[in-house]
């Protein structure tokens, strides 16, 4: 009985963790590639969530429609952010980088508040099939979809970055932009591509999260911290690291919510974050 319950908690933690992994891999990619921390990353997720809400309320479309739309919209947002802002501040003082992306975060967060209002929005429970029971464990359709898609897209992103020529070109730019340029690679194109990929991953994750979680303008704040923890844990720039760390954090969160109490799940995660930064600033799997 208790074993089943515990298993239930672990499984839902893993499903949640796969989505965490997906949006964190976007942050990790940007960070690893150009040493810029996007403090507006949580807002990118939030806008992905609102995309799902709008697609449902305006068009009546489920995640099959909202996921691709969110991917395209947030990828566009990422590219715009890169060309209009990040490209100019990435060589400046670190404070200007923090200032720039924080300003963007405020702009997007309160823009959403203005447009959508402060009320929490939720999508209907049965939007993604009904829940089913397998081996004594209850699976909710929306969470299963989110977990599976999260896992698949994260792995695809990892393969794209490590097994294709475009991935090698991006790696070349991240290691030495000037040398890459001499080899005929255009650094700005690769960096813009990184923002597009990160935006797409984040948008997909947002649209998936919206199917089982409330959407509000400030939801990005919490999610951004989850992403920071995941990236710090997984190692900066590593998508595979983000996957393992995301799954781990999902499980830790649901276990601590179950064993200690829901309020303390954030406390455990933040404390884990501080400890990891303290003892292994390069991440659990990072090499440095």
């Amino acid at each position, binding site marked *: 009985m208790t074993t089943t319950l515990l298993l239930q908690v672990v499984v839902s933690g893993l499903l949640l963790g796969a989505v965490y992994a997906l949006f964190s891999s976007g942050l990790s990619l940007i*960070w690893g590639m150009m*040493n810029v*921390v996007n403090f507006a990353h949580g807002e990118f997720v939030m806008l992905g969530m609102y995309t799902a809400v709008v697609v449902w309320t305006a068009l009546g479309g489920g995640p099959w429609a909202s996921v691709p739309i969110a991917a395209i919209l947030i990828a566009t947002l990422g590219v715009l952010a890169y060309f*209009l*802002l990040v490209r*100019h*501040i990435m*060589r*400046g*003082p*670190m*404070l*200007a*980088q*923090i*200032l*720039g992306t*924080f*300003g*963007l*975060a*405020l*702009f*997007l*967060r*309160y*823009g959403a*508040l*203005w447009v959508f209002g402060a009320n929490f929005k939720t999508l209907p429970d049965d939007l993604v099939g009904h829940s089913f029971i397998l081996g004594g464990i209850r699976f909710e359709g929306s969470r299963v979809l989110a977990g599976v898609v999260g896992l698949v897209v994260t792995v695809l992103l990892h393969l794209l970055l490590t097994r294709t020529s475009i991935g090698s070109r991006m790696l070349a730019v991240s290691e030495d932009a000037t040398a890459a340029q001499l080899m005929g690679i255009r650094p700005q194109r690769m960096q813009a591509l990184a923002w597009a990929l990160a935006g797409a991953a984040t948008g997909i994750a947002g649209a998936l999260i919206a199917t089982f979680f409330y959407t509000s*303008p400030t939801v990005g*704040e919490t999610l951004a*911290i989850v992403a*920071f*923890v995941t990236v*710090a844990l997984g190692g900066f720039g590593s998508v595979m690291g983000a996957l393992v760390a995301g799954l781990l954090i999902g499980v830790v969160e649901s276990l601590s919510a179950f064993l200690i109490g829901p*309020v*303390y799940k*954030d*406390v455990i995660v*933040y*404390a884990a*974050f*501080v400890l990891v*930064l*303290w003892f292994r*600033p390069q991440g659990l799997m990072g090499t440095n």
Partner: protein
Amino acid sequence: MTARRLLQIALVVVVLAYPIVTAGSPVWQRLGALVLLAAISASAWNIVGGYAGQVSVGHAVFFGIGAYSAVVAFVHLDLPPILGAPLGMLVSVAVAAVIGVPTLRLSGHYFSMATIAVGELVRVLSSTSDWLGGAQGLGGPAMPRTVFDLSFVSAMPYYYIFLAVLAGVLGLTWWIERGRMGFYLRAIKDSERAARSLGVSAGRYKLYAYMLSAAFTSVAGSLYLCMFGFVDPESGFGILLSVKILVMAALGGAGQLFGPLVGALILVPLEELSNSLLGGQGAGITFVVYGAIIVIIARFLPSGLLSLLERRPNAPTKAAPVNPSPASGHAD
């Protein structure tokens, strides 16, 4: 030179006379006091964030400690709130040491993110503490009992109290800036490795700067409580507060004596103005504008507004050499 001296005297007179000139308008008086209060916390942040280049995004921890110390002095000890200020300073310095010893070893973004995490940790923990009033927060004296409660209807007394404290913080910053510690901090900001190799005990001086900064941020929190009479986890420890403190300093010019004051002079009236023009309905727009201004400043004036004043005669094209970037601080 004399023209400059005259300008300085004129500025001092304006600052001192401001509440008297605006005596007929409580709104303007209040605005003046709010600018000074914001300038206190931003100037305190500037010591560690600007001069030492350690970008803390968790200074609300100390602001909150100051505010909660003041309200705890009233609620649990039945003292005037301001007597909590020294307590808050002590607690803040201690907490700064506890946070700083491990996190100041981190460089660049890593330090910033660790301070965010610590800030959120403290906020969540404070909202679970019944002794601190939980998520509802705690209120100061409903009616002033004596003058020591520092609870005034008019904003004029606050203006002068805040002005005196700000003068103290700026005076101390000026003294540090010109002394040995100031040179050490700037050296650490430019290149910690180089500073270390020249014999600066970087870790120790960063920690001193952090603790000093924490103490004064805490004072700002205590003063905030005296004026507003209420604090909850969001207004005391919220991440938005940490961001505002940082943004004000960076907007005016981080690492410059008057940078934070200039930032406060622009952002506080902007916030108050858009709040009053747009009312509760437009609360979102305030921060949309806020965000847009911050983005524009970061994009076009990465070293703050005061960098406009100090164009050097033969400065090369852009800001790069004039403003040594602390970029060397990360990826070590």
